[in-house]
């Protein structure tokens, strides 16, 4: 027991503290009982006293009374790592050995069955001893079901120096019979650490506030090891469990146990019946008393290793599997071997439960290498996964497949990677990029194939892939720099959006790339110097030829202009200096340091200084790099000098690096501040740092002549410092400084000579001796005296000092042989018999050299020269000098040695390689898209989330539309061709003209207007004209029309006359028709472009009328007719056409979208095409299309403008302007375009129709021409005449259509009823009577064709 009272007090505190910590409810759980009433399950505490004197800890050894005088306990085997015995001994024998014990009993009794089974099990086990986690106390409490105890097979601990056991002998001698050594073994390391870390242990402090005195544990000491408390973390689990059990006192039901454990840790989640005290952390060491079923708990034979886990894995309950996998993963995490479970685990690779699956993957990746054959069983699962429709599953399958290091599956991996590299999901492609280095490390023969994949992925345009593929590139084929050419600009542009880790890799790679491809931006300076020199020589020689050649070379070496790609890289990396990731900042910094013109490098300083505020590891790396940089570019960091000032709390390694930087930054202007700062450092408690500071002062003094004397004086003052190390360091530095100007400082040398009496540090002594020897002429009186003293103490000196003594002697002999001859002889004699052969050799050598003999005459003459030659002063250099030949920020730079896999940073080329290799086929396009993409990405989600989402749906919608449009037009043509008389060619022409032409003549337009007036007039007059009349009128009109056409134009075909009434123009000149005919493809392409353009304008998907059958949709879009807005001739080569795209106008639902197609047929560029001065009639509104900046000759542009026609067929007039001309144009809509289709059911239709009777109903009878009697033809004609949607109809002979006017939204309902034969009746119901009548007319005309 300890002697001092304070120790006693501390011990008591410790123990009560301990008990509370280990088993907080200890007082509630146990009561002390007397020896006479001892019974099974009582805990016995034997005292152990340590022999080490002054120990303040008292140990207790715990055991548990079994029955019939037997005691079971855990004991550590001496000097065998942490192996233990679990043994039973006789109670009395033990008492005799160990002394009197204290006995405690669990208040609420114990479960005897459980206890015995645990005892049985324990007797067959070993446990790994751990003084803090697994000691005798734990064992005892475990038997009573109170805390965890880990029984396990002991492995040979090969953790090297980590746990060197030191035995602390205990009182009890080794016992016979059981062969147990009664010694407690603790790791010395642990002890040391425990003491060292105690005060900083946060948990400790927390616990200290507990009412220590509250527990009646004065005499009770449960613990074996007093240290336990210092690492209380380990007990938290136990404590919780203890609380859970304590007062309640019943044996735990399995369910209770589970719940309670779940709270503490999910890892511990056990299935029903699993003993609560087992922790999954040690699952491999478990020999469960109980299997998954409680019934097994009583089985007497413990099942072999891991059987329970296997059983759980084989069960069909996911929860059991999960539990087993969790335990197995915990084993892997601890570094324990779980490979024997491989077959059981691999079976679950196809498990449905995601977490089980994931954990199986973890296991598989860890052990597949060891069990290759079995691992193959899992491959098919991954192959299936590779084809999953979900991209994330494909990716994860590839990830695991490629992580399995089994050479047999290399071909499968290769195939999978190739496939994934062209996957449509960028995430899968990213995973493929990750898989490449994995496969490469498994089988480097695949390199060529992998390079192909890399090449393909490098061309990928997504940011997600970029970082990963460059990583793969760097690992597989960093030498293939040519692969980068085509992707260089793309990488530069994408860089800012790549994730941070990818950025680091890309920047480092691009640094190397740039070094091979561009010229040095700093060559200008050197070039200038060079050329100046040349000019000088040239003028001297006065040779015209030379001058010419020189001029040529000058011309050739024209002033440096930075490659735009070089600039691109610098520009695009600069914003990354603001990254939060230190690695990215460092990468950019090194890029600038290696690549940027001198004047621009400065920007990185600020960012690097910012990193100095980060974690100390980051500081360490950054300072190393700053130290290197500050040598080359001192000016860069000068403004931040103060950021490198040293705090007393900085770790030494940081201090020394900062000192290095400060020294590098010192110059004439700031040296005084720096020296003042150094003065503070010299008084530091950290002696290593002080020594470094002294050296730094020495360096400043050598570099800056101005302060040399000041520094020297300061250092001399340090010679009287109390600390010997400081003095020694100063001596060494002073010696170096004195070498520069020895003559002026004989006083200092004298002073130092005196120091030989006191200074013991060998290096310093040696330095002084060397100084005196070297400058013995300056101190002629002192030198021999020093030698005399040294000769006396020669034998006791260190080797390094001895050598200098010999040196000194030799020099003195040469300069002052009179006084020192004898002394020299004496010293040399002493040295001759020295133990060190170096010294013996030196003595012999010197003797031969200086003492003249017959043999050595020749050399003797030169002895003085040899010894007293002028020696150049040493240059004190930074250890970071020239480190920049390693790429900064790299591991190699940090270690100042080439690391494995380091790629040399190449020197700048003399001649720039061809920059065109970086040209991509469509450079503008890529640039533009990348920019757009970025903009889109940044902008979209911010302003409206819906836009981003609607994007893809829209495109999905619009694509089939454009197809349908095409098919629609073709079907319309085929239908008209089916009408008979025309030939294919002509029909094409007709279609085109019908869709494209409008008269450019005002004359004709007027005609048209009058015609319409006529029509209206006739209609009004007729009221409800008879069918015949109508027919007559139609015929008349056709005739008139035809005649008009003939009148106005030279060539009119009869087909045309009958072809299109709605396209009011008659025809075109033949030449024009021909030109039209030559470019049908472009007009065909028209509608396609429309859809694309609409997509760009991000319209929400148009509210399409849902057609009752799919073929109905096509006619609705089949009749997109194109009208002419500006004829080529009138427009001076600019021709403009328009059509009604029948889509809602994006900006305004009340506008009709007009698609305008502008072709530039001139030879010159047309600039700033725009709409100006719209002069709409009252109420009419025009939404102009965005200005077209330029239109190249031969180009065609499509734009959309919106016009609100106010539900009238009045033309909209406006000016179309170019940069030179204004054209007055007008757009007149056919009535059918003023509406938009609506979808309604038959019932709705009827209901609405019922509301629109009387005045709102217009009926007309008509005869359907023969070609227009099929359902298809009718529907098509109606929908082409008007933008209406079909309404389903029950009757066979009825067709219904519905629409709403665009501006007012009034319903327009159309019914066409077929009567017997060719007769039919058309009814239009609409509020807008004008529209109704016009529509009737139009439809009748359309049908009559």
């Amino acid at each position, binding site marked *: 027991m300890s002697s001092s009272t304070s120790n006693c007090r501390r011990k008591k505190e410790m123990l009560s503290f301990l008990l509370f910590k280990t088993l907080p409810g200890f007082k509630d759980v146990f009561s002390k009982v007397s020896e006479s009433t001892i019974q099974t399950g009582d805990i016995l505490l034997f005292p152990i006293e340590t022999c080490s004197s002054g120990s303040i800890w008292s140990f207790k050894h715990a055991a548990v009374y079994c029955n019939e005088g037997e005691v079971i306990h855990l004991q550590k085997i001496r000097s065998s790592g942490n192996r233990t015995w679990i043994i039973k001994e006789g109670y009395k024998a033990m008492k005799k050995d160990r002394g009197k014990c204290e006995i405690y009993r669990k208040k609420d009794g114990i479960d005897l069955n459980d206890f015995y089974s645990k005892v049985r099990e324990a007797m067959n086990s070993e446990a790994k001893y751990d003084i803090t986690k697994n000691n005798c106390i734990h064992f005892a409490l475990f038997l009573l079901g109170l805390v965890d105890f880990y029984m396990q097979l002991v492995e040979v601990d090969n*953790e*090297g*120096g*980590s746990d060197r056991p030191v035995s602390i002998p205990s009182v009890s001698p080794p016992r016979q019979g059981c062969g147990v050594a009664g010694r407690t073994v603790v790791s010395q390391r*642990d002890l040391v*650490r425990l*003491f060292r*870390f105690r005060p900083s242990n946060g948990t400790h402090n927390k616990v200290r506030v507990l009412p220590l005195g509250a527990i009646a544990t004065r005499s009770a000491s449960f613990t074996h090891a007093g240290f336990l408390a210092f690492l209380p*973390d380990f007990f*938290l689990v136990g404590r919780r469990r203890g609380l859970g059990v304590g007062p309640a006192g019943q044996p735990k039901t399995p369910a209770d146990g589970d719940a309670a454990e779940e*709270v503490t840790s*999910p890892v511990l*989640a056990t299935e029903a019946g699993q003993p609560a005290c087992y922790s999954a952390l040690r699952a491999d060491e478990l020999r469960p008393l109980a299997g998954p079923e409680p019934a097994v708990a009583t089985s007497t034979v413990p099942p072999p290793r891991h059987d329970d886990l296997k059983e759980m894995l084989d069960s069909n309950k996911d929860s059991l599997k999960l539990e087993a996998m969790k335990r197995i*993963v915990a084993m*892997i*995490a*601890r570094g324990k071997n779980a490979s024997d479970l491989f077959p059981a685990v691999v079976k679950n690779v196809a498990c449905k439960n*995601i977490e089980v699956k*994931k*954990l199986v993957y973890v296991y598989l990746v860890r052990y597949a*290498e060891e069990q290759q054959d079995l691992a193959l069983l899992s491959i098919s699962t991954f192959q299936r996964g590779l084809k999953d429709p979900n991209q*994330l599953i494909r990716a994860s399958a590839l*990830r695991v497949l490629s*992580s399995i*290091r089994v050479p047999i599956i290399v071909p499968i991996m290769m195939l999978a990677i190739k496939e994934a590299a062209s996957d449509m*999901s960028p*995430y899968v492609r990213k*995973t493929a990029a*990750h898989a490449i*280095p994995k496969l490469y490390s498994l089988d480097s023969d695949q390199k060529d194939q992998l390079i192909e994949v890399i090449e393909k992925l490098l061309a990928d345009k997504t*940011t997600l892939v970029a970082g990963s593929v460059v990583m793969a590139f760097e690992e597989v084929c960093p030498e293939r720099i040519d692969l980068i050419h085509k992707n260089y600009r793309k990488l530069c542009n994408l860089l800012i959006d790549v994730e*941070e*880790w990818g950025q680091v890799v890309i920047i*480092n790679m691009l640094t190397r790339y740039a070094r091979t491809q561009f010229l040095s931006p700093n060559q200008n300076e050197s070039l200038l110097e060079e050329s100046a020199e040349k000019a000088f020589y040239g003028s001297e020689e006065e040779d015209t030829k030379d001058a010419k050649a020189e001029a040529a070379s000058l011309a050739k070496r024209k002033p440096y202009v930075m490659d735009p790609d070089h600039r691109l890289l610098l520009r695009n990396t600069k914003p990354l200096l*603001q990254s*939060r990731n230190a690695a990215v900042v460092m990468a950019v910094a090194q890029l600038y340091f290696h690549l940027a013109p001198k004047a621009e490098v400065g920007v990185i300083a*600020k960012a690097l200084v*910012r990193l100095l505020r980060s*974690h*100390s590891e*980051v500081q360490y*790396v950054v300072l190393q790099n700053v130290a290197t940089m500050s040598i080359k570019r001192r000016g860069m960091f000068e403004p931040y000098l103060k950021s490198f000032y040293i*705090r007393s709390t900085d770790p030494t*390694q940081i201090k020394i690096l900062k000192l290095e930087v400060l020294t590098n930054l010192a110059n004439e202007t700031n040296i005084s501040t720096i020296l003042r700062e150094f003065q503070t450092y010299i008084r*530091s*408690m950290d002696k290593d740092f002080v020594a470094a500071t002294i050296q730094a002062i020495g360096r400043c003094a050598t570099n800056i002549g101005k302060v040399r004397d000041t520094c020297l004086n300061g250092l001399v003052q340090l010679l009287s410092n*109390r*600390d010997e190390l400081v003095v020694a360091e100063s001596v060494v530095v002073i010696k170096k400084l004195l070498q520069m100007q020895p003559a002026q400082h004989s006083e200092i040398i004298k002073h130092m000579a005196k120091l030989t009496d006191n200074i013991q540090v060998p290096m310093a002594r040696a330095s002084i001796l060397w100084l005196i020897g070297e400058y013995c002429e300056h101190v002629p009186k002192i030198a021999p005296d020093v030698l005399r003293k040294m000769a006396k103490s020669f034998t006791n000196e260190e080797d390094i000092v001895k050598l200098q003594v010999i040196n000194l002697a030799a020099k003195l002999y040469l300069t002052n042989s009179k006084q020192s001859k004898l002394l020299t002889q004496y010293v040399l004699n002493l040295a001759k018999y020295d133990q060190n052969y170096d010294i013996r050799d030196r003595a012999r050598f010197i003797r031969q050299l200086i003492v003249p003999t017959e043999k050595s005459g020749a050399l003797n003459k030169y002895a003085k020269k040899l010894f007293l030659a002028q020696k150049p002063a040493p240059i004190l250099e930074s250890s970071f000098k020239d480190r920049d030949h390693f790429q900064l920020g790299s*591991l*190699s730079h*940090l*270690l100042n*040695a080439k*690391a*494995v*896999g*380091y*790629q040399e940073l190449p020197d700048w080329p003399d001649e720039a390689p061809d920059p065109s290799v970086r040209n991509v086929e469509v450079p503008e396009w890529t640039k533009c898209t990348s920019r757009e993409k970025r903009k889109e990405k940044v902008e979209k*989600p911010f*302003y409206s989330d819906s836009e981003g989402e609607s994007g893809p749906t829209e495109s999905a919608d619009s694509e089939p539309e454009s197809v349908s449009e095409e098919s629609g037009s073709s079907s319309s043509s085929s239908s008209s061709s089916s009408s008979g008389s025309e030939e294919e060619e002509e029909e094409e022409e007709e279609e085109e003209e019908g869709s494209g032409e409008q008269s450019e003549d005002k004359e004709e337009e007027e005609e048209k207007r009058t015609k319409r007036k006529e029509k209206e007039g006739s209609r009004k007059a007729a009221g409800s004209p008879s069918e015949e009349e109508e027919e007559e009128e139609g015929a008349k009109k056709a005739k008139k029309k035809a005649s008009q056409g003939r009148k106005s134009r030279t060539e009119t075909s009869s087909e045309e006359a009958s072809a299109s009434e709605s396209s009011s123009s008659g025809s075109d000149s033949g030449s024009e028709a021909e030109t039209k005919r030559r470019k049908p493809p472009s007009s065909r392409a028209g509608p396609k472009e429309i859809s694309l353009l609409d997509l760009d304008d991000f319209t929400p998907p148009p509210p399409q009328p849902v057609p009752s059958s799919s073929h109905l949709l096509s006619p609705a879009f089949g009749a997109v007719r194109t009208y002419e807005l500006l004829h080529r001739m009138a427009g001076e080569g600019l021709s403009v056409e328009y059509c009604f795209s029948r889509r809602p106008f994006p900006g305004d639902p009340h506008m009709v979208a007009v698609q305008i197609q502008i072709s530039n047929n001139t030879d010159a560029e047309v600039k700033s095409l725009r709409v100006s001065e719209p002069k709409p009639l009252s109420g009419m509104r025009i939404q102009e299309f965005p200005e077209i900046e330029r239109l190249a000759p031969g180009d065609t542009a499509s734009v959309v403008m919106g016009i609100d026609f106010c539900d009238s067929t009045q033309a909209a007039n406006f000016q179309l302007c170019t940069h030179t001309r204004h054209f007055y144009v007008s757009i007149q809509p056919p009535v059918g375009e003023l509406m938009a289709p609506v979808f309604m059911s038959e019932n709705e239709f009827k209901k609405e129709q019922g509301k629109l009777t009387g005045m709102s109903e217009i009926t007309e009878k008509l005869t359907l021409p023969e070609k227009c009697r099929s359902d298809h033809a009718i529907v098509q004609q109606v929908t082409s005449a008007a933008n209406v949607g079909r309404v389903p109809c029950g009757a066979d002979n009825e067709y219904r259509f519905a629409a709403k006017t665009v501006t007012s939204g009034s319903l327009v309902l159309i019914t066409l009823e077929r009567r017997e034969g060719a007769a039919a009746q058309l009814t239009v119901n609409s509020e807008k009577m004008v529209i109704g009548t016009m529509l009737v007319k139009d439809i009748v005309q359309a049908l009559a064709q």
Partner: protein
Amino acid sequence: MIHSLFLINCSGDIFLEKHWKSVVSKSVCDYFFEAQEKAIDVENVPPVISTPHHYLISIYRDKIFFVSVIQTEVPPLFVIEFLHRVADTFQDYFGECSETAIKDNVVIVYELLEEMLDNGFPLATESNILKELIKPPTILRSVVNSITGSTNVGDTLPTGQLSNIPWRRAGVKYTNNEAYFDVIEEIDAIIDKSGKMPCKLIFLSLSFMNPRLLDDVSFHPCIRFKRWESERVLSFIPPDGNFRLISYRVSSQNLVAIPVYVKHMISFKENSSSGRFDVTIGPKQNMGKTVEGVVMTVHMPKAVLNMNLTATQGSYTFDPVTKVLTWDVGKITPQKLPNLKGIVNLQSGAPKPEENPSLNIQFKIQQLAISGLKVNRLDMYGEKYKPFKGVKYITKAGKFQVRT
């Protein structure tokens, strides 16, 4: 890149290992232990150690060494930054990054590490994505899991990984919509013996406008750099939860006064085993704000055996083992300045310490940004609702050291 990771506690136990490529024996850590022994102090363990076949790059966080094994050239900061990110993630998941927490959640830790690195190259480091993949443990969830047998692994596949803004999940919904901005300014300073300031820098951890003050900034990736460049407005899509938006530094030129001053008199008498210690802390003009949470720590010289002091305010402790004096002052009231004075007992016979210790001071001033930086306005776009917006200013001491 990163081959393996070992987590080692202070007593030198390797309590977790994870390998991303083939298995590296844990004996490689011996080199680390060697270096650790040599370094004496944990802070001085070199972050990069070269061994014959591997390189060890380590960080020390929360009493745990994260030792990673590297086989080939890699930027060291890349690894260091990543390891810190791992530690941050643990902190985020378990509330603390301690050995206990890691051991308790070993499966989650393993799953996290598996997701964060693929073949040693970082895959998902954004906590948002990780939380979608692996749900952080909560008591409620673990109870539910134990009953229902469900798991911590998200059953919906994460989409965040696929997006271009990995820091925000899609469809985040809350009943309260709040945006708080804490402008935390930290003052780093070394104050000279004479009270002069050789080094004066302000660092701040997060902020908004009147940007001319800001000398150097670093951003969360969510910030649109272009907008900042052109308008000096921070425009960003906020990540979910707490995050550091911007760190900025205010250049030393336009800095206001340091908010506290220290009067000190520390002396050790020659040839006697005692010394005097007398420190007073006082506030300078702080625009009416009080200086709170003042704590002074002093690393006393080794020769100091014990200290007998009296504090007019707060309490002090002196640890004779580490020789650290801690004085918890609390709030400073200008009427009665806190003072700590008394006798220092030195080891008898030991030479007088030549250096006076530096005083490290921590303090906090609520509702004040010492640089004068102010958030001008906060606008929100793209949502109809009006979130609650709040800005809080705090000034703290960063590395604030007074030399004596």
